Every structure is written in C-alpha cells, then in structure tokens.
C-alpha cells in the first residue's frame, strides 16, 4: 500500500510528476512471529524476558513481526547442531555434493528474488530499486560463484581442509548480502555455520532458512540465531566455534579481536570506513558526479565503504559542487517500496540520532551544510541527502564514520596532497579515484592504503572480486579466490 506521506524531492515544479509506482507487498507472507533456525527447524528462543523482540519497518514504524531472542543456551544448542552436522555430514561430504546444495540455494534465491527484495526493503528501509536490482541478484551470484569452488578447492592456493564450525555475525545495512558473503564461502569449503543477523533486520535471514529447507540442505549445516549484542557475544566466544567472521563497527570488531586472543579461533573482520572519493581536474565530470552521488547516497550511505569524504581538486571544486547540488536535487527520498525512490529510510531511531548528532557537530564546527528541499514523512526515520563543504581533516565529520547520507567535502591541490589526506585516517577500506589519465589511476591505486580502489566508478561489487580493509577497517577478504582463505586451513 503506497505511503501517501512521501513526496518527491524533485525540484521540477509539477510538470512531469511521477505518479506513485508501488511494488506490491502481497508477495511476502510475514508471519506474526519467528523462532530460531536450529538443526533444520524453527524452534523457540529462550532469551531474557519474553524471549522475543520486535522488528519494525523503519519507513513507517509499523511492527513487522516478533522474532525470537537466542539465549546462551540456544547459542550452545546451535553450535552443537553445527558441530554434529560438520562431523557427520558436511565436513566429510564430497565437494561436488556440497556444490550442488549451494547451486540449489542459488537457484531458489533467483526464483524467489522479488519476494526477498520486497522483504529486505520492508525490514531494512532501502529502496526496492536497490534490493531488487543490486542486493538480491548479487546474493544469488555469490552463492553461484562459491558453489563452483566447493569441488575445486585444490586449485585455491589455500589448501582444501575446512576449519569446522563458523560463528558469523552480520550487520543491518545489507542483511541478505552480508549473509551470502558469510555463508557461501564457509559452506563451499566444508564448514558449517551459526549466523546471527542484526537485530533490526532478521527477516530475510529467516526466509533464507526456509530456502535452506526447500533445498533439502542437511540439518545443522546452517543455523540462524536471532538476537542482539548478547547473542552475538555468546556466539563469538563459544569455545566450540573454530572461526569467527564479523562485519560491523570497528568498536565491536576490536572487542572481538580481544576476545579471541589466546584461542585457536581464526577470525576475519570487516569493519568501518571513511573512504576518500578523489576527483581530479581531468575527471569525466558528469560520471564523477554520479560516482559521488552513488558513493555516499546509495543505500542511504549505510555502507562501510561509502565515499563519505569527497576530496576534490581545488581548481574544479566549485564546478563539481554546483553540478553535485543540481544532481542531488533530482534524488527522490521516500517510500522504499515505491519503484522510483532513490533514497529510503534510515534503518533505526538509533542510527538516525547518530546521523543527526554528527551533522549538528559538523555545523557547529563551521562546515557549510546543504541539502536539497525535501518533504519528509512525519513517521518513520528519515534524513535528507546532505553535504558539508569547507570541511578540513580536523573536523569530526571528516574523521568519524557517520553511516548515513552525509558527505564531507574537502579540497586538495596536488596528487600527493590527495594521497596524504586520503590515507590520513585509521580506516582503510576503500577509495575512489576520478581522472582520465591511466597512469595516474595506477599511481593513486598504488599509494592509497585501502583494500578496494575504485577508479572512475564506485560501490561496485562482484562475487569474484575480493573485498576487505586495511588498518582499522579490518582484516581478511570476502569474495574471489582470496575469500576462501578465511575458511580453509
């Protein structure tokens, strides 16, 4: 049902107004409550209090479902199920058979693609255009890619022995995609998993559990334990977990790294970022503006590798900013289920508060704040696309990850100054370079201390392409041949 509160941000005054184009919700069948998925079936949770929590639609604040909360005992049960499945079934299964299960899962994801996309948009707040065209297809591709490695591990360069049971904790920004990035390589290599989705976005993980059932995946190979911070802690510190994989904030990543110290647990972390998106004076300017917009406003800026710092060469700064503002005025903020929405809802009240707080700090520190005119709905969590100009490295909004649709704009004069500023951060996840000159692209790529460098593009993901950070953005890689390393010995 279309949300009548949302209106386009387009600055065109009434001539070509896009009528509401809602994607139907009828394809999803959200149950009133969900249990934990352990050993191939849904079971009750025994978390503190009622043992359940609610997940809401951030665009409307409507309650979508009640979700079980996993207690320490539930986590233990899940790890035991994973261990048993590893020892008796999955760890000893020939690669070609594991491959077939993963191919089945990939196929079913394709078959139920629209359903998954709608559910993701409802639970996360991201536009249906993105969940339909980016998230879900990439999820399917990820499972297809790793399915093909299951029976070729001897060619990986990392051995062909799995680790055992993997405990995996994922964030709320790309719920199903982050699940795919964790589960696909783990299973391909012969590991079994216990995965905890984020507390604000559990629903596609739970639908994935149904898909595992449809694929006849042996019980215990995949276990989903829903819950919040306590559940995650119980999982990563469980003594019978051989491998910990975490994507989330640097703070939590740091705590995990400390918690596994002295154990045999292998760990990979994919944490925060404050990527520099560097635009040179000879950039293909219209595509650079698209890249800036894509870099920070795609997925509402809830992206660890977001290009949240625009470093623009001073000689073209004014022109780039004029074009950027003009382009931002055509962004449509609104109902995530409207097919024409470009920017959806902020995932939670907490995240919205954080974005607001840091934006207010940005203003207080003297940066110039600008957003296009936006009619934001009265309920739900919304923030307009925003840029701060005149930002310097010393500003908090140049250093701290905001994780929202907020861009900090700095200038530079020379390539070496751009490198210096880009690298001057504890983070090192990604970077963007915009120039027409090939040698400069390669020079910058060499110099930038970032795990992913996008040249004349941004926010491009592919299952064959390794992704991960330098420095405090974490360690380990997901995707590609390199993505197998973390799941083999």
């Amino acid at each position, binding site marked *: 049902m279309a949300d009548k509160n949302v209106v386009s941000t387009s600055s*065109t005054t009434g*001539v*070509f107004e896009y*009528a*509401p*184009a809602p994607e139907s919700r009828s394809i999803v069948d959200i149950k009133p409550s969900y249990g934990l998925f352990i050993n191939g079936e849904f079971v009750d949770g025994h978390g503190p209090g009622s043992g359940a929590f609610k997940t809401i639609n951030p665009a409307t604040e409507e309650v979508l479902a009640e979700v079980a909360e996993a207690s320490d005992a539930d986590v233990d049960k899940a790890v035991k199920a994973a261990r048993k499945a590893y020892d008796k079934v999955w760890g000893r299964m020939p690669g070609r058979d594991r491959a077939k299960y993963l191919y089945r899962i990939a196929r079913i994801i394709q078959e139920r693609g629209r359903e998954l996309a709608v559910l993701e948009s409802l639970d996360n707040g991201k536009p249906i*255009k993105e969940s339909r065209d980016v998230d879900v297809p990439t999820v399917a591709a990820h499972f297809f890619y790793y399915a093909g490695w299951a029976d070729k591990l001897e060619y990986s360069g990392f051995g062909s022995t799995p680790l055992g049971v993997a405990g995996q904790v994922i964030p709320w920004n790309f719920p199903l995609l982050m699940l795919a990035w964790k589960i696909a390589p783990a299973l391909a290599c012969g590991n079994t998993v216990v995965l905890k989705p984020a507390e604000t976005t559990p629903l596609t993980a739970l639908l994935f559990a149904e898909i595992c059932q449809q694929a006849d995946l042996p019980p215990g190979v995949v276990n989903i334990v829903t819950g919040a911070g306590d559940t995650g802690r119980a999982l990563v510190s469980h003594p019978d977990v051989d491998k910990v994989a975490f994507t989330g904030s640097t703070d939590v990543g740091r705590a995990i790294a400390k918690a596994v110290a002295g154990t045999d647990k292998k760990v990979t972390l994919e944490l925060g970022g404050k990527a520099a998106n560097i635009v040179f004076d000879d950039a293909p300017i219209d595509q650079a503006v*698209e*890249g800036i917009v894509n870099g920070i406003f795609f997925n509402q800026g809830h992206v660890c590798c977001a290009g949240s710092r625009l470093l623009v060469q001073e000689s073209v700064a004014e022109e780039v900013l004029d074009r950027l503002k003009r382009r931002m005025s055509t962004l449509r903020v609104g109902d995530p289920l409207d*097919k024409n929405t470009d920017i959806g809802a902020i995932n939670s009240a907490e995240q919205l508060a954080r974005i607001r707080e840091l934006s207010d700090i940005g203003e207080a520190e003297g940066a110039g704040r600008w957003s296009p005119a936006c009619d934001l709905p009265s309920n739900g969590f919304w923030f307009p696309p925003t840029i701060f100009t005149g930002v310097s490295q010393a500003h908090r909004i140049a250093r701290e990850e905001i994780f929202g649709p907020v861009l900090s704009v700095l200038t530079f004069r020379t390539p070496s100054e751009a490198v210096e500023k880009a690298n001057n951060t504890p983070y090192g996840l990604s970077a963007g370079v915009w120039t027409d000159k090939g040698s400069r692209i390669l020079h910058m790529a060499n110099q930038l201390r970032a795990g992913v460098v996008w040249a004349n593009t941004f926010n491009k993901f592919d299952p064959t392409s390794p992704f991960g950070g330098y420095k405090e953005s974490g360690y380990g890689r997901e995707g590609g041949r390199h993505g197998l390393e973390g799941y083999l010995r």
Partner: protein
Amino acid sequence: MPPGQGSAASASSADFSDITRTAASLRRFLHGLPGVDQVGAEARAASLGTRSIKTTAKAFAIDLAIRMVDLTTLEGQDTPGKVRALAAKAMHPDPADPSCPMTAAVCVYPDMVASAKQVLGDSGVNVAAVATAFPSGRAALDIKLADTRDAVEAGADEIDMVIDRGAFLAGHYKQVFDEIVAVREACGSAHLKVIFETGELQTYDNVRRASWLAMMAGGHFIKTSTGKVQPAATLPVTMVMLEAVRDFREQTGQMVGVKPAGGIRTTKDAIKYLVMVNEVAGQDWLDPDWFRFGASTLLNDLLMQRTKMKTGRYSGPDYFTLD
C-alpha cells in the same frame, strides 16, 4: 507552432568567436572538453530507464510524446500520395479519438515538402525537411546549400542537416563548423537541426564535441541520427547531448533542442527518453519546441498505449491506421 520564434538571435557565435576563429583554437577547445566515461554514462542512462512511470504520469508522458513526434518518411519510394497520407495522420493520429494531440512535425525529403504543405496548411504541424545530401552528407558545399534553399523555398519550417562525418573524424572541425554556419544562413527563418550520425562518430567524447561545435555554430537543435545507420538513437548518446545543451545554457543563457531519431519504436522507449530529459536537462526541455522524436512506427505504439489507458484493454494494430 510557428517557426523562427524564441531565441533565434545569433548571440552565441559572438560569445565563441575567439574559440571558433581558427582551426587550432577550435580543436583545442573541443579536445579540452571533459571526457565521457562510457561505462558510467551507460550505467546512468540505464538507471534512468528503470523509472516506473504509471497512471497519470504515463498518460501525461504519452500525450507529450505524441506532440513531440516528427512523423517521418525518408524513402526512395516516397510519392506525393504517401506524403499526403502521412501528413493527414500527423494532424489526426487517432481516427477514433479527436482529442488525440497532433504531432510536432512531418519530416520528409526536400522535394516532398510541397505535398506535405498542401495537406498541413496552417494546422500547426510543421514541415521539417532533411537537406545537405542527406543521409551521407557526401557532396560539395554549394550543392548542400542549394539543397537547403530548395527546401526552404518549398515552405519547410525546419531543416534537418547532416554534418560531414568524414571531415569530423579527420579532425577538420573548422570545416564542419563553417558548413553548419553556412547552412544556418541558408535556412533564413527556418529552424536548423544538426544531425551528427552518432553511430558513425562512435565515441561519447565525439558526441560531446560535435554537440558543442553545432551549438556554437548556431544550430537550434542537435539530432542524433539519420535513421539510416545502426546504431541510431540510444539513451546514453541522447543523455550526453542533453548534458551538452544543459551546460550550454548554463554558460550562454541560450537553449538548444535535442532530437533522438531512429530506433525508438515503443512507448516504453519514448517514456525513458522523457524521464531522461526531465532529470538530466530539466523540465524546460519537456516541450515540443525543445525536444523531438524522429520516428515513424513509434506513433502507432503511442496511440495503442493511449487507447489502453483510456479503455483499460490491450489494443491491436487493426485499430490504428497504417499510412
């Protein structure tokens, strides 16, 4: 709509006289324009193509698209009879529905202008004539100018010229520029559209350069293709041209129109173009004075979709005229 109105004054050539004075300065300017990244440009055009235009927006877009059609016949086998039938269709596209708007123009070879004019009179549907040794452009300049004058004398309101692609690809930009200026002069009060034949120019960088060259030379419209070469109009090529006219107005205050031609066959395609005009150049271009579709089969599909929106039923080709 009457020809020769609006900002037909040649203020632009005065602004650019330094740039266009010599072959070297013109070349430096054109080669100094920002490049176009092919992958990024095509991705943006494709993304705009995913806009979902429904109900009232779709009805608006269909009617606007009909009003923007330059209904075209450019065949060796054209006869006065064929052209008169086409002209009648342009004035009354849907025999079952008099509320259906007229098209913007009819587009024909110069020796067919008179036949079209006979039927169209002062209905408000313009006559556009291709000229300058269309479609190849391979003839001496005086022949191309005579071709142009011929069409204007016969009553053409608009002239669609082709640039010399050979000269352009050989880097003789000044020659191309001077030819456009000469043709513009031969047009008198008729409006000039400049056809690039983007399929032959191949790169988006070339399309951007051709756009600036044509605009500085005084073209009223820039046009993608003759429709005789594949690929003809595409969304990304048109997008690059829309960016050029937007930037040109930013710099000079002057508007130039855009016309994609050839290969636009369905309402769905046409609507994608209108979305692109809306979000890339802006609302001011959403008007037949500033945006046209060079098409023939497109019109019937627009009529079918228009009918479906009114009746709620899918229609069929039997209900629309083939002219």
